[in-house]
Every structure is written in structure tokens, then in C-alpha cells.
């Protein structure tokens, strides 16, 4: 019997702890499939963040670290400097990367570290139960902005891809989403390009993946996908923000 499809060997058999409708499962699989297709056995080290994907070390089937909140790019820097031939990636959420870890991500990009960051932006703190993030949209309700985020009080949501594309040494920055089949395919291609650039010795790459959080947004998974399309994508436009390899 012909095998038409099988689970990638770069995911363990551990059952995900993610909520129903969460996009982490899709994104994990894309990352794992790309690694699998690159034939890098024994040469992959991932770094999990603090946030919903704190247990990513239990899911990605390779050498893994669990970093302090926001520090994954610094940890990945240490790993890559010591193990230059490895594919080193961080997997971080928006509380981790866009709030407490801004110094680490900006300076990893600034140094042109040869690492890749998968930045999952769902506009909220998931793990701690739905607090406002720097990426929370204007008017979006969260447990620490129950009346909805106001520009007057909290400023406008931060745009990390645009910001990091402006850092001179960043190499490849793209924002994708996983809300449709077409977008999932584009997301996988972006991750594959970033990983390929790293193994060619190019500089810092980040793929921002817009993601839903049905639980903390208070929506069904289907409503959440619609909300992402109607609210997140207009504010966080998809596309390539920087690609030195294409220049």
C-alpha cells in the first residue's frame, strides 16, 4: 500500500496542550515539515519561549531549549555562535517578542545573527489568560483593558515586522497568516526560505505569523479566523518587508 501522507518525524507524539482552534498546531507542523524536508538530521536546535508555546520543546523533535521570557534571541545567539553549523530557530509569541523581549530581538537583528525567528502574533497574552499585548488592536478587549485598548492610554499596536525590516542588518522579514489554505502554503514557503538563508550563512530572518486565539478573544474558531481576516490583516498587512536575497 502506498503511503500518501505521514506525520513529520520532527514532531514528537506528545499531544498538544493548545486550545481548540488555536493556530499553534498548524504553525508547529509547518516548521517541522520544513526542517524535515531540509535533511538536517542532527543539526537542528530550537528555542521555546515563555507563553502558550512554552512547551514547544516537548513537541519539536530535535535538540531544544526553553528560554526565559523574551530572551530566546539571546539564547539562540549563544547557541549559534558556539554551534555554527546548526539550524537555530526561536519560536516566540507577541508578549514574549514584542514586549519583554524587544531588546533581545532588535539586537539579534542588529548584529545580523544567523538565526531564524518564528514570531506568532495573536494580539494578546494567551498563557496568562488574555491580557493586553503591545500588539492588541485599538478597541480590542482584554482582561487588562476591559473597555478595549485606547490609543490615548496605551498607544497604537506595535508593528514588529516593519520595525525589524528597518534594522540595517536584518536579512529577510515576512509577515504571513495561516487562515486559508493559500496562506498556509505561503507561510510554509516563507519559513523554508528563512531556514535556507540561514543554512547559506545569511543574516537574521523573521517570519511573523498572524494567529488566532479563540479562547481569549471569546470567539469560536471560525469567528476568530473571520476576525483575524477583517481586523488583524488590515492593520498588519501580509507580505515581504525585507528580502536582501531577492535584491
Amino acid at each position: 500500500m502506498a503511503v500518501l501522507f505521514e506525520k513529520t518525524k520532527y514532531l514528537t507524539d506528545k499531544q498538544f496542550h493548545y486550545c481548540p482552534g488555536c493556530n499553534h498546531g498548524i504553525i508547529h507542523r509547518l516548521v517541522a515539515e520544513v526542517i524535515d524536508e531540509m535533511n538536517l538530521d542532527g543539526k537542528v536546535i530550537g528555542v521555546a519561549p515563555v507563553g502558550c508555546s512554552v512547551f514547544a520543546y516537548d513537541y519539536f523533535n530535535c535538540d531544544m531549549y526553553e528560554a526565559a521570557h523574551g530572551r530566546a534571541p539571546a539564547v539562540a545567539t549563544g547557541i549559534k555562535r558556539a554551534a555554527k553549523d546548526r539550524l537555530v530557530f526561536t519560536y516566540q509569541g507577541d508578549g514574549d517578542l514584542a514586549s519583554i523581549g524587544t531588546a533581545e530581538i532588535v539586537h539579534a537583528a542588529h548584529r545580523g545573527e544567523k538565526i531564524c525567528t518564528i514570531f506568532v502574533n495573536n494580539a494578546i497574552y494567551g498563557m496568562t489568560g488574555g491580557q493586553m499585548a503591545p500588539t492588541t488592536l485599538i478597541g480590542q478587549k482584554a482582561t487588562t483593558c476591559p473597555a478595549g485598548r485606547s490609543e490615548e492610554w496605551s498607544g497604537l499596536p506595535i508593528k514588529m515586522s516593519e520595525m525589524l525590516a528597518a534594522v540595517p542588518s536584518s536579512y529577510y522579514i515576512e509577515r504571513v497568516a495561516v487562515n486559508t489554505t493559500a496562506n498556509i502554503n505561503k507561510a510554509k514557503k516563507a519559513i523554508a526560505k528563512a531556514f535556507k538563508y540561514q543554512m547559506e550563512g545569511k543574516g537574521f530572518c523573521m517570519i511573523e505569523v498572524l494567529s488566532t486565539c479563540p479562547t481569549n478573544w471569546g470567539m469560536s474558531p471560525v469567528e476568530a479566523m473571520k476576525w483575524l481576516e477583517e481586523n488583524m490583516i488590515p492593520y498588519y498587512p501580509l507580505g515581504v518587508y525585507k528580502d536582501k536575497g531577492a535584491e
Partner: protein
Amino acid sequence: MALTLMKGSEAIAEAAIRAGARYFFGYPITPQTEIPEYMSARMPEVDGCFLQAESEVAAINMVYGAAGTGARVITSSSSPGVSLKQEGISYCAGAMVPAVIINVMRGGPGLGNIQASQGDYFQGVKGGGNGDYHLLTFAPASVQEAIDLMMIAYDKAEKYRIPVLFLADGIIAQMMEPVELPEMVDYKIDPEQKPWACTGWKPGDDPAKRGIINSIYIDTESLAVHNDELQAMYKEVVANEQMWEEFNCENADYIITAFGTVARIAKSAITELKAQGINVGLVRPITVWPFPYDAIRKVVDQPSVKAVLDVELNEGQMLEDVKLAINGTKEVDFFGHCGSQMPTTAEIVTKILSMKEGK
């Protein structure tokens, strides 16, 4: 072997390289900036890596990353910078990542000053970061001793999987002394020796051997098991790794306790007091964690000993451990300065004389 005149900070850096360190991550801060400066020139000569991080927070996390691959890694800073490193130090301790951290102590709290201090004793030996952990903590009293301790630091760190802290006052880093440098150690990462490290596991290999550098144990049972393992390791360190120096202790009338540079000044005071017919001894902890409680207790228990004087360049931090060691059996007095005014030989002599006169 020929002696070389070297500044403490540069000697510490060179010793680390000779002990096999090939990765340095740090951030400039007085009075230890000569360490990163030296490393920036020296590391490329040995195919190593010097990286100036954006902050001390990032630097210690780079240490966590590099050391998790099995490499020998070092970072250095001074008091306010070491405060910033505490988060990462706690993670290294929790994940049992061996590494070497240098604290060239300056005056505090806050920005304090840039002169020598011993004000970070509590921070170094009583925690510093969150959770139940310890660091194997060396307090060198000379440049040569700092070198010698560095040559055993990585072996100890790797044997127990414990981070090692050098608690050195600013004098140790800033003074020049004639030293003998050891031979270069030929260190190579051996996955057999470091089965916990991320050295190239692949799918299909034994899942139990996958490298996972981690300090989270989310359910109470597994965290309890992990902490029991840590505590068992700390017990072994306490049993095997205490180091101290005794000077003129036999049948002494008074015992001085001091660490680092202050202990050398205390020795001068002891020599002067001897000339006046007063017999004073010194116990100098070289490891301040594990603390040599039993050694101090044994010396102080001598019937000849009337009282103990603890001298520090702070307001009395090690004093608490000295009191725990003696446990109320003899009187313990304290002399010290904060604000980085080094206690002088004359001050220590005067203090002992006043104790003798019962003042």
C-alpha cells in the same frame, strides 16, 4: 617557572582561556571592563568568540545558549550588572547549565560607586535570583589565587552541573601582581561526558537522550523530583568542595574572619599584633558557598579563643554565616566599612585592642 606581572582582570581572562573557555559574552561596566577588552583581542587568537551583548540580561542568556551546547563559556560584570544577570543565573542553575560568572564587586546599592566592595555577598551566596539554588562561589584573595581557582572552576562546574561564581572585590581585578600562568588545557566537547547537552540528537535516536535545556517542571511532582535532585547535588558540593585558609590559628586569643582582599589586610594586622604579644588567627573562606561552617567552628572552639572579629568591606554580610558557624558559643564582633573605604591595618589592630580591653 617565570613570573609575569599581570593586572587581575587580565589574568582572570587569560586563565579562563587556558581553562578552555572559548566563548565570552559581556557588557562594559567599571571596574571590570578590562576583562571584555582583553577577551576581545585574545579570543580570536584561540578561535574563540568574544561578543559584546546589548545588556547583561542578554549576555547571561547567551551564556545559557552557548554552554548548553557543551562549550566552556564565561561572562563577567560588576555589581549592578550582576543584578541584571540574576534572572539568567537562576535559569542556568535550574537547567543545571555549567558556566563561569565573574562579579568584580563595586560599591552599592543602586549605582553606588566604582570602587572596591564586598557588598554582594548576600546576592552571591544567599540566592540572588528566584528559587532554591546555590552557586559554587569562589572568593579569591590574590590574582594568583583567582587564576588557580579558574583552573578548577570548569571541572567543578561540569562535575556537578552547577554554575560557578567568582566573588572578587574590585581590588583583585584592578591590582597588578606577579603570577604564574598555567598551561593551556585542551578542552573539546565530548557528548559522552555531557549527555545532557545539545550536541546533535536526531529523530530515531533514543528519545530519552534528546537535548532539552530547560528549567520548567509544570506539575508539582516533577518539580519536586527536580528540586530533590538539585538539593542532593548541593549536599555533595557541601561535603566535598569547601575551601578555606587558616593563618596563625593555633591557640590564638582572637580569631578574625574575612574574605578576599580584606583578609590580606587582616594578616598584616595579625603580624603587628603578634609584635605586641597578642596572638590572633585568621580563618579565610575561599569558597563562600559552600561556607566552611565546621572549619570556623573548630578553630573558634579552641579554649584559648576569647572572641571573634569579622571584618568586611560592607556592613556585615558574611558576619551572619560566621555567627551561624559559631552558634552563640563565643562573642562575635564586627568591623567594616561600606562606601568602599578599605579597612586599614591600623583600624583592625585598634579594634582587636579595644576588644581585649573589653570596650
